[in-house]
């Protein structure tokens, strides 16, 4: 419908502007704490972008993990490390860096704009008909069934309108424990390793002070 798609476009460009604006503040701002907060703003913009792209679960995970946790971690780091109070000086090779970044951008943009993406406009009629009506047609011909999403039988998953999986959470869950179960477990191990490694790295290297028990008599001050 016309108004939903113009609103989607407005939301998309708004979220992109927020993301890219805050990203520019991150790389140009001298005060590191402001850069950390701008980074959190950029992450929030990316989260909104995921919502616009109909990836709700990924968007919520982005806000929960990046904005809620990693941004606080960065703010803590900035608050602890006192050297950054002087700000972050720009480095000698800035122009070369900018040129390289522009080259990377040109290469990726050229590739993206010149590729012939087979998008959802060209999928087959059966899929198109099923996807735009809000329910999935499972089976062909006389045996078409309309199936509803539920966790009972994850082999029959609803694909709602617009050709994208709006209720993607259960499908992602099934993906994680069926097709990608090895990656899932390895990520768990990786996070445990990161946790233990981080704790070891920040452990205080000074020896522990002697414990004074209460039974020792103390010399009274003279």
């Amino acid at each position, binding site marked *: 419908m016309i108004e939903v798609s113009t*609103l989607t476009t407005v939301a998309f460009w708004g979220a992109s502007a927020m993301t890219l604006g805050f990203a520019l503040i991150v790389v140009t701002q001298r005060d590191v704490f402001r850069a950390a907060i701008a980074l959190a703003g950029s992450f929030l913009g990316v989260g909104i972008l995921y919502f616009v792209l109909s990836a709700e679960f990924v968007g*919520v*995970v982005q806000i*929960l993990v990046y904005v*809620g946790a990693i941004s*606080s971690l960065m*703010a*803590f780091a900035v608050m602890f490390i006192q050297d950054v109070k002087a700000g972050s000086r720009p480095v000698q090779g800035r122009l070369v860096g900018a040129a390289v970044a522009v080259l990377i951008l040109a290469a990726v943009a050229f590739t993206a704009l010149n590729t012939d993406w087979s998008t959802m406009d060209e999928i087959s009629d059966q899929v198109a008909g099923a996807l735009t009506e809000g329910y999935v047609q499972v089976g062909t011909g006389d045996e078409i069934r309309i199936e509803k999403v539920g966790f*009972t039988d994850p082999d029959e998953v609803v694909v709602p309108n617009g050709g994208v999986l709006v209720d993607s959470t259960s499908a992602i869950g099934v993906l994680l424990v069926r097709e990608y179960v090895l990656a899932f477990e390895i990520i768990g191990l990786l996070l445990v390793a990161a946790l233990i490694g981080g704790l070891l790295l920040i452990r205080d290297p000074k020896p522990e002070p002697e414990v004074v028990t209460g039974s020792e008599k103390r010399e*009274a001050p003279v």
Partner: protein
Amino acid sequence: MDQAFLDNSLWRNIYCNLAGGSTGSASCAAHGYSEGILPAGMEWLAFAIAALAIVGLFVNGILGGVIVLIWGERRLFGRFQTRTGPNRWGPFGMLTSVADAIKTMFKEDVVPKDADRILFNMAPIMMTAPAVLVFAVIPFGVGTYIADLNVGVLFIMAVGSLTTLAVLTAAWSSANRIAILSAFRAVALLISYEIPMALALVGVIMLAGSMSLGQIVQAQAIPFILVQPLAVFVFFIAAMAEMARAPFDLTEAESELAAGYLNDYASMKFGLFFLAEFMAEISTSAIFTVLFLGGWRGWDPVPSHFWFGAKLILVLFVIIWFRMTLPRLRVDQVLKLAWKGLFELTLINIVVTAVLIGIWPEPTTNQLWIMAAVNWPVAIISIWAVSKLLGTSGYADPLPDADAPVYPVATEQIPAAAVHVPSSPGNSQTQQGGD
């Protein structure tokens, strides 16, 4: 228009009256609306007007609720302390919070000299925005919500975690060491209690089969407070800690830190922080009602909004009761409770609920009762076991034996040479030489 939009009766009323019957199979005409006011090409205007109207209604409703809550809480404080509470302005003192708001707005806005101005001004906004945003997914009655996200529960957790950043910004931009110290304690508290809070809701999500709050309300044939007692216990405690309310108000312990990270905020900026805390209280009560008490479910002749409101007020009363009754916990006690106590309870809850859901994937009402009957003994035993684990070993028995005197008595003799007895001026000169 999308079926999900048309289920929302607030949306439907405004949009369909404005835009009229439009294209699509689930359209306004199917719900009995004739042609709308606006001409055919302007559905986006109808969308925008409907959206702004609904959001405005919700935000104003919440602000009004906060005003009433501030008054109600102060009156309840008074009753708990056997005094009256505010009773000057308006009948029963109902306009007290209005007077408070006006007074706050007229105070001078002080900004510290070394403060980072942009961040200093942004911090109250960063604190208030998540508090309001949470209300976007909560259903206040049948078809009365702003959006019914498929990931509603996780959205609430995600948005609730934005307050840590606001606390850090507020403290850092105040350029004040006490504020930063208080902010570290506050953030340690907030991040420690996010995990039990999120994990406690996993049981509810498993029972309802969806993270959408509308689906969860509809799945509560019996309220989930009966079926998930451990989750209720953990969620309630964790939510009170997330709001930084007593008994967890170590961040603003007035005798210790003098308003903590909010130290340098004056007038309306402090008012915004204050507002954010009360909005968080209402939103927590609303979430508790929706997830555990059955939301707007009730019996028929009385409208659903009334049931929601009644349950909300009940939960608010319990929260205020807790604040008035329990003493403040120390920061190490608080963190110990989160990591050693509540975390284990949530894991036990998840395992037991997963086993029960494995047996009955889509539970009917009778099966929910059986699950409740299984969960309550498990909950009581787990809470008892965890309380033994946390223990009171660090705190000595105050009166070890009955013969001991109640007042402190010195058990060691202080050496005489250490004692300087101030006597009359004539003696002091001779005594000082002996020290």
